[in-house]
């Protein structure tokens, strides 16, 4: 049924939207202590994401809601199966939200330093946890015939998934640094630009290694690319986008660099989706228990209603998201409203 595939594609788009948008503000959180310890500059970094971070986080809520509605069986199995990991995700999400909100409300140095570290550590936590979760989704989990699984926290931390977590950290740090080039100036900009080549090399090496590892260890994933050779464009174009981002940075075309980085993230998410499709959650116990786009989706009526809702809603969402980003464009200046 084309609707199921359409929803799978829409779902990948929503998740990519989340990784691109919340990705740069997570990156800013992770990078902050490596860029500056001076309070004024810290506030510049924080306020670069100030007006948009909560809008970005809404994409995660949307992702959860869309998964619940379009693929309820995946939502139920995945969220309950990764119970403790999900609880930790919630813990760090809450800590991060309050850290941003509380930090500049009081002038004391200890107070600000406490919430700065909370902000940074929780940004790392979200990135690693979600990266590890994605790693386990790609690897497959011990689904039984009722769609139940229970993975302990230690089982989640297998080498492959940890590697994916690290790639996620490198990718979002790079994405965040590229974002910051649009928002900063002077010495702060110089120190960020010094970080970018290092991040880029680290990410490039880690990602290439992970792609090779995935293709070697995962026959089904590799087979899917062989069966649908055109999908190889996704990873190939992703590499071209990284190169483009690098060239744009060197030319000082920061907005183009950011867009190239965002495109790269979308292409990589697309590549993972191509390697998985039609499986959404693979069972390592028995492939008959796999949750796929076909057997785990909501029924036609629901998918149709949801599709109409998405058609009405998404253009507005994109329009005012673009409008808000346009409004807050340019370098950050601190004022009375700032965090």
């Amino acid at each position, binding site marked *: 049924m084309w609707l199921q595939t359409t929803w799978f594609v829409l779902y990948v788009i929503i998740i990519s939207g989340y990784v691109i948008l919340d990705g740069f503000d997570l990156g800013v959180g992770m990078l902050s202590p490596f860029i500056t310890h001076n309070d004024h500059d810290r506030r510049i970094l924080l306020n670069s994401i100030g007006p948009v971070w909560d809008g970005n986080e*809404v994409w995660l*809520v949307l992702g959860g809601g869309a998964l619940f509605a379009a693929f309820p069986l995946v939502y139920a199995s995945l969220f309950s199966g990764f119970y403790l990991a999900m609880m930790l995700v919630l813990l760090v999400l809450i800590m991060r939200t309050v850290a941003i909100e509380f930090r500049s409300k009081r002038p004391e140095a200890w107070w600000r330093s406490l919430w700065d570290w909370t902000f940074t550590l929780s940004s790392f936590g979200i990135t690693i946890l979600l990266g590890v979760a994605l790693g386990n989704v790609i690897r497959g989990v011990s689904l039984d015939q*009722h769609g139940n699984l229970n993975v302990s926290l230690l089982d989640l931390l297998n080498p492959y998934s940890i590697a994916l977590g690290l790639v996620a950290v490198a990718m979002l740090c790079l994405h965040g640094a590229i974002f910051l080039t649009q928002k900063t100036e002077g010495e702060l900009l110089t120190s960020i630009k010094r970080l970018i080549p290092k991040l880029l090399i680290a990410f490039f090496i880690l990602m290439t290694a992970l792609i090779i590892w995935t293709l070697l260890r995962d026959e089904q994933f590799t087979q899917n690319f062989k069966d649908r050779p055109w999908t190889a464009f996704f990873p190939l174009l992703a590499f071209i986008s990284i190169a483009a981002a690098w060239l744009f940075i060197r030319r000082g075309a920061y907005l183009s660099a950011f867009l190239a980085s965002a495109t790269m993230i979308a292409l990589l998410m697309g590549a993972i989706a191509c390697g998985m499709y039609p499986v959404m959650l693979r069972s390592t116990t028995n492939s008959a228990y796999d949750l796929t786009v076909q*057997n785990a989706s909501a029924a036609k009526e629901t998918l149709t209603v949801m599709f109409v809702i998405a058609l009405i809603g998404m253009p507005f969402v994109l329009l*005012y998201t673009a*409008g808000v980003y346009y409004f807050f464009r340019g370098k950050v200046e601190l004022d009375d409203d700032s965090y």
Partner: protein
Amino acid sequence: MFRTEQIEQNEGSKLSVEVLHRIQFALTISFHFIFPPLSLGVGMILVIFGIKSVRTKDPKWRQLSMFWVKIYGLIFAMGIATGIVQEFEFGTNWSQYSRFVGNIFGSLLAAEGIFAFMLEGGFLGLMLFGGTRLGNRMWLFATTMVVVGATFSATWIVMANSWMQTPQGFEIKDVGQGPQAFMTSFHDVVFTPSFLPRVLHVIAACWMVGSSLVLSVGAFYILKKRHVELAKTMVRVALPVFTVVALLQVAVFGANQATEVAKNQPAKLAAMEGLYQSESCAPMYLLGWTDANAQTTNGIHIPCLLSFLTDKSFDATVTGLEATPRDEWPAVNLVFQVYHLMINLGMLFILIGLVACGFWIWKRKIWNQRWLLWILVSSVVLTELATETGWWTAEFSRQPWIVWQVLKTTDAYSPNVSFSQVMFSIVMFVLLYIVVFVVFIRLLDRHIKEGPPPPVDPDETSSLPDSFGEIFRRRSRVSSGGD
């Protein structure tokens, strides 16, 4: 929790995991539910300030807006942080429920995400950071969009919950993945019989909570003789809203709900009023205590009022709990008590509102009535308590059903999550929420004690972009460099 019959050993342990899941959900949603009504209600007051700013050009309205928008931001952040927990918990703790209702409930949540959260999240930045960037009209526009988003959000979530109370527009089929509810009519799912009365009741409750916070802060400043003129303005705006909504809440929205519940969920109404036997001329209690063994309720009551409220006739018969099998009763006394606490608080709000309005109309004597001002200071705690007990009434009285007469709560939780895992997350949430709440209250307190920012020069405000054209022609700000 309510079964007293002999329970087998393994049944016993199963039951306690269920209870833990329920405790966690109850704790996290009750904590979350402190914030959205506050932000929706305060947002509505901000819209009033915004309109006044545009109409009168008096800088005090802008000054008030910028003071309250900071409080709004703090509340909103708490709402987001605790709200994501709720969305995740359907999957983590209630996976069987999620599988069963995903086709219906999931789509309402997703619609909330697209229509409501995106609108709020998108415009929130403009609202919070608009003080130095937007003129009065554009700031009002951004704020209105956020409030519209919050209202949509309340609407979709109450719609989803109303489907759990009065489900319709679906059929149950097993297509190889266990029984699932499939949508047969989106229209019926959206417009369940309880939806409209409930959403009006909830939105009115949000306005009560928001206006009472503004009243509370205003009255506090007057008592402390600080920012007195601005504080009087706060009270002048919030008090009429509070009083009118309090009256509407009891006389219209609340009464509507009684009729609706009596019609669609008679067992629920019977538990709320502690009515064991079906009766004509059924009484309505003001205070009381239900006795499960004797199946009687004792207390102060008004004869025949319940019959009148449900069917506009004093001798209408109201169905008692006897019509429902014993094992499908909720915890009657618990429901009775939280429901009556809500009702009595609702009556108290009318009294407070009318007395305060009376002293205001009577030669503005309200400003000297310290006892009355102190009551107004405490009003926000009372309205919060009333909203919480209202939500508890709705949820407790639906038990043992998670979807009314379709799916039991005991069949809804995640079977693959262990006792110790839920125990861990409950402890985690309790500790986390205590810390976050203490910091939230202290920051709120500090912000209130610091008081409003100095008034903004109207010339400065009028130089800010104040139409879509001006916003998008505005050049990217020239960098000033350094500090």
